[in-house]
């Protein structure tokens, strides 16, 4: 029982950075913009957050720096993809390559340093519930932020006027423009939100998950987030499920190794990616529901006609 509780708690922690970055990308894609730069923005967020926290001694300053870095990078992407209507795939890939290189360069002097990262804060009363209390309500503050973000995104998309506008812009920017909606502004905001969340996810890695900086520490989470968003059919609830599934599978290989399971580590390290994708493929079966949630204009450059 004790062990199961610990595994579940570790699952939530492992799934959190993925959940954060994927929520940002979900909003971004719902506006019709596909940003393949998640991995780059996460890495930049991780390194900026770590450096800022290390030099200021404040984790909060680190978080703000990480988010600001993510937003700045996404606005750069937005300028190319929205204002210049450049190819979103190419612009996003460029952002990832740029972010990977720059973060390694900026962070090279900080490898090996470590800081006191975010620690667990138990929520009174709730954390006393057996199992669930430890798993959900005795975690670091950023985990709680991810809960709020997930609920907030779900509420925003389905219940608010802003969410309605976002969905409309993502489905058909021409019709949205004809309806008097400000397509480009909506898309900039969505892209910036995606950037901020990617920065935050990066900071989670370098300030909470493993409080230090190592080169390429995201290990492909930005890419798996992109796949997650698609297979979760752009719905926040499924995104949460997918992120924790990934978390569980990545914990599982540690657990199996601990139990003395003798199989190649490479094979086990592959597990989270395979399991997550397979499960979500099975979940995204209903074509009608999928179609209702798919942003139809995704990835297509849009220029308002004049």
């Amino acid at each position: 029982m004790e062990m199961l509780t610990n595994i579940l708690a570790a699952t939530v922690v492992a799934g959190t950075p993925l959940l954060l970055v994927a929520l940002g990308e979900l909003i971004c894609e719902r506006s019709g913009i596909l940003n393949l730069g998640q991995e780059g923005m996460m890495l930049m967020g991780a390194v900026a957050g770590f450096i800022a926290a290390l030099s200021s001694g404040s984790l909060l300053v680190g978080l703000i720096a990480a988010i600001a870095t993510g937003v700045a990078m996404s606005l750069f992407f937005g300028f190319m993809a929205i204002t210049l209507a450049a190819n979103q795939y190419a612009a996003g890939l460029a952002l990832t390559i740029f972010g990977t290189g720059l973060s390694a360069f900026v962070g090279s002097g900080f490898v090996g340093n470590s800081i006191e990262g975010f620690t667990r804060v138990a929520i009174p009363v709730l954390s006393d519930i057996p199992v669930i209390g430890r798993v959900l309500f005795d975690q670091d503050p950023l985990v709680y932020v991810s809960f709020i973000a997930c609920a907030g995104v779900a509420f925003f998309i389905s219940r608010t006027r802003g969410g309605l506008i976002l969905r409309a812009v993502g489905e058909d920017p021409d019709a949205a423009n004809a309806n008097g909606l400000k397509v480009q502004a909506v898309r900039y905001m969505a892209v910036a939100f995606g950037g901020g969340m990617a920065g935050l996810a990066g900071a989670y890695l370098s300030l909470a998950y493993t409080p230090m900086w190592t080169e390429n520490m995201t290990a492909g989470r930005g890419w798996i987030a992109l796949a997650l968003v698609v297979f979760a059919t752009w719905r926040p609830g499924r995104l949460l499920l997918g992120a924790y599934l990934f978390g569980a599978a990545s914990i599982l290989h540690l657990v199996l190794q601990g139990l003395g399971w003798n199989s190649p580590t490479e094979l086990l390290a592959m597990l989270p990616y395979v399991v997550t994708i397979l499960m979500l493929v099975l979940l995204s079966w209903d074509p009608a529901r999928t179609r209702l949630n798919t942003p139809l204009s995704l990835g297509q450059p849009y220029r308002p006609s004049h």
Partner: protein
Amino acid sequence: MSATQRLKLENIVKEYPGCRANDGIDLIVEAGEIHALLGENGAGKSTLMKVIYGLVQPDEGQMFWNGKPVQVANPAEARGMGIGMVFQHFSLFETLTVAENIALGLPAYEARDRAKLEERIREVSAHYGMALDPRRYVSTLSVGERQRVEIVRCLIQESTLLILDEPTSVLTPQEVTTLFATLRKLSAEGCSILFISHKLEEVRALCDNATVLRHGRVSGDCRPAEISATDIARLMVGEDTPISTRVTSAQPGELLLEAKNLSWRCDDPFGTSLNKVSFNLRRGEIVGIAGVAGNGQDELLKALSGEVRVDAGSLEFDGRRIETLTPDQRRGSGVAIVPEERLGRGAVPGMTLADNALLTASGQGLVQKGMIRFGRVREFCRNVIDRFDVRCNGETSTAGSLSGGNLQKYIIGREALQNPKLLVASHPTWGVDVGSAVAIHEALIRLRDEGAAILLISEDLDELYQLCNRMGALCGGRLSPLAEASDLSIEQLGQWMAGEFGSEEASHVAA
């Protein structure tokens, strides 16, 4: 006087690279007036309405709204002034509900209370005889219902000028009657309507005044009820263009194509499945398939061309079963297809006319042992261009550089010169100028008289009545019985288009 002038345009000029779309247009729409804007495709109608609605800015000219000079910077401003617009391609979001779609066009404070908005939608739609359920997803609505959503949206925004772009082209005759009743009621209540169309009889029945455009200029103003349709047509196309096709009677021969219970399930949740479609075609006749867009026309064409393989049913062509053959094999046995989209499916826009000829006519000795015989290709292509009067810069022009009418003449010609036994043509004159439409109709009749069978899928009922020997209608993927065109009343056809035929009748083909 100026108090009753809702909209006045003075000398509107809009120039695009290589084309003066609007060349000094004047237009006055009075309060409560139904005003027709007539003209062929490319005459400048759509540019003009985009100017009015603030989607494009005019290079010169002045617009007056209720007597005051105004400049409309964007659609939101136009709507704020009271201009409502219903586009031909609706600006609705399929994945949202009716109420959500309407909420998007309203200021936030009015859209906040969803229950109140839904009540208002029900009220307005009931008042004007356009029943609507605000909670339904737009993707589940028929084309006619979607148009109602657009109109109701304008009404809820309290528009005092409603611009309708070719509103009847997507409706059944009965729906047209309902729409006209709504528009008359609106006009009686003081709302002005700018009715854009090229259907002259409708304009004569509905509109108080008409402004006719040709080549970006006003070629005439008239009271449509007082002059003949032919006179209006002359204003639209000018003096030199033939405006009607001479149709000789057909001599149908033996049975060529027998389709029995064709069924095909569409995987796309928003698409249409074919349900037991049965019909037959004889040599030397034209059979018409009417129907509102999206009722299975495209699916039927694909089932005949071989682009989709039907799940059930048989297709017997010229004494041989073809339902399992590939498109290429069907083409080889004498089936020619003219799909709805000229650019993209009928022809590749970026390729030259010669290369486009090769795409479907390679079986005409244009290829030998896998090698292209360029001389023959050029010859074939020039032959099409000459015989079908395609206006272009020779066989090296790209397909995308031709006007809609000329490209369509080229595509029809390319298929006709391969002497098909069966030609399936979908919306062959959609968006085509009158002169080209006449040429295309004549080409179809010539082909028929040479013994080919023609299946004509069209939304243009005038065209169908003019050309077809027998006709039926598709609705929801089911085909009505076919009847002799001369015996089929437009009311009956309209009922068929709305799906009012027993399934018993549908599977039994009228002789």
